[in-house]
């Protein structure tokens, strides 16, 4: 998709079709996720839109849900953290999963993993959005309804992710589960490396800063 294509009406019609396809995916996962990679029924663009939607709805969930069902101290609320808490795990998961499945004869590409993962989270997006509205009309005692809905959506999505991994990598269920566990370990490893990297970088930056200060003190 180029900048020029943004001006064409067809781009948006296609995007709409692709987003609509997520609804097909969650009810027909085996078929749906197979076609994502093989028949180009969804694109990175539509996945990005869906991810942005997920992040926005997460922020709305934390701010607009009736206070009976959500524990957020607004004094310390930061929308960027909320957005990060959605985007970062999905990106990390995609990279880690792709890295492991490439070694494990997986057929999917990085973009396939990314698109499929986000599409698998469609139930959570829908139920979170519905939850914001429902929470305005129910009482604390009826909160079971709200919590059950979100839990079911989460379980549904996790199962969809597994099916998606099976389909796009052409795996058996066992192999999909194994690769997913490895991917989660991989996320931990990546975070560890990141932290090591940043702490070393900051140490070395501090070294040069102090070196500079030292020289400046000597010269003046």
């Amino acid at each position, binding site marked *: 998709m180029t900048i020029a294509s943004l001006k064409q009406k067809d781009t948006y019609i296609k995007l709409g079709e692709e987003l609509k396809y997520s609804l097909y995916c969650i009810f027909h996962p085996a078929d749906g996720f197979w076609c994502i990679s093989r028949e180009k029924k969804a694109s990175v663009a539509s996945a990005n839109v869906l991810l942005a939607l997920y992040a926005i709805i997460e922020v709305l969930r934390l701010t607009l849900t009736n*206070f*009976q069902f959500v524990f957020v*101290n607004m*004094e310390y609320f930061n929308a960027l953290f909320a957005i990060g808490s959605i985007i970062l795990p999905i990106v990390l998961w995609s990279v880690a999963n792709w890295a492991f499945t490439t070694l494990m004869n997986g057929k999917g590409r990085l973009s396939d993993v990314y698109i499929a993962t986000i599409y698998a989270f469609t139930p959570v997006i829908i139920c979170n959005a519905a939850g914001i509205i429902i929470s305005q*009309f129910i*009482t*604390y*005692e*009826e*909160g079971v309804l709200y919590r059950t809905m979100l839990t079911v959506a989460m379980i549904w999505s996790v199962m969809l992710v597994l099916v998606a991994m099976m389909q796009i990598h052409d795996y058996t269920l066992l192999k999909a589960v194994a690769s997913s566990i490895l991917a989660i370990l991989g996320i931990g490893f990546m975070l560890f490396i990141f932290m090591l990297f940043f702490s070393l970088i900051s140490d070395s930056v501090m070294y040069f800063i102090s070196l500079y200060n030292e020289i400046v003190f000597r010269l003046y």
Partner: protein
Amino acid sequence: MKLKPFIVLLLIFAFLTALPAAAIGTDTGVGPTNYTYNYSFWGEEIAMPDAYYVAATITGHDFGIENFSNPQGLFIRDNRIYICDTDNNRIVLLEYEENTDSYNLIRVVEYTMINGQQSFFSRPHDLFENRNGEIYIADTENNRVLRLDNDFNYINSILKPYDRSYDPNMDFLPTKLVVDFSDRIFIQARHINMGLMEYNIDGTFYGFMGASPVQVSIIDYFWKMIATDEQRRQMELFVPTEYNNVALDHEGFVYATLSTFSGNPFDADPVRRLNAVGTDILVRNGMFGYSSPAGDWYWSNLGGVDGPSRFVDVVVFENDGYICLDRNRGRLFAYDFQGNLLYVFGGRGNIAGRFLDPVAIDRMGTSLFVLDARTAAITRFNHTEYGYFIDRAMNYYYSGRYDESAEMWDEVLKLNGSYDLAFIGKGRAALRNEQFLDAMRFYEAKYDQESYGKAFQLYRKEWIEANISTIIAILVSLWIVTKGLKIFFKFRKKRKGGAS
């Protein structure tokens, strides 16, 4: 001299700065308690106005007698203040005179006459006067509890029980005691971990009462299972925790505190209300976070003080609220009858309103008297206006008069606009008066989700009942419109189809 004006100026300046210092220097012991706080819904420590101020400090010197030495026991009935001056082996009786706001020494008792002989006290630790005026003294080192009449004349004594449940080789060292309304005496003796010892006042031993249930973890049980007999003998025994103090409330129930728990104090129930068979019936309905009354939520490590709050005494008010005394940090924790933390004050230190080794607390009306063993002084706290309004609001709430309670909460809010319980109390009154929307607003302000739910349920019901005709009208018209549109599109399609 050029310097002279400068020196004069300096002198004036010194005098001016010394003036307030001198005013404070003539310390009458009257002053703020320095820091009062509570915890918010989010577990943050929130400072608030003082609920109690230091009204007086009382020492032995004030009455021309030898100063108290390591006093351990304090008991107040009406306006009589009994002090167990432990290391001086005597009981000191003071009387408070309200009109002149003064304390008078009534008598100093060092012995009682038994069969015509002087029998001296030996390190008495506690004293109790029951409603009939009989005085009970835990005469610790003499291994006895003395039952005396109002004039300290001997009636009988309560001694070590000859019972199968009591090890005959163990000394009987009574330290704390209360006598309930049905003439049963509950004694906490040193090294006894089976609960409180229950006697009749004539000295008959009934048994033990109120032992904490033994907590055995699965891991301990597993090790016990595979250990040899010898190893088992060396293992720590599963002993229930040992109470350290008892108090009686206005209904005749026994309150007991304990401080020998290990681990999380919020699971240990360090303050308990025991019924006649020794079951803990303290209400623990606190709203926020840790609902169990167990002192501080965060344990700062300052000045060599570490670990959780260690309650050593408790005093119960007419409205079933109670104040626990924390020996670890010298703080006083006030709870209401539901177990909500009202305020915390006091602390460690050498100034009025702080303690070095607080051991006992009792009350006269709503005034608190705290006995410090190290400084050998009693500190009297009186309610400030703020504390008085909170107390009144709780009184009204306790007796179910929610409207009056709400009025008092209004007064509290004038002094402290962020007092959680005030908002919730106002919400309760609004809910009772069927002002559901107001109630919801008050509850939402202080995050009381459950009560908000109740108010909202009623509001929702009311709203639907009021607007049921509108709702039905909207639904019906929506239905008609959709139907109509469907027919319209069908018609248009048909016509279009027909045209093309």
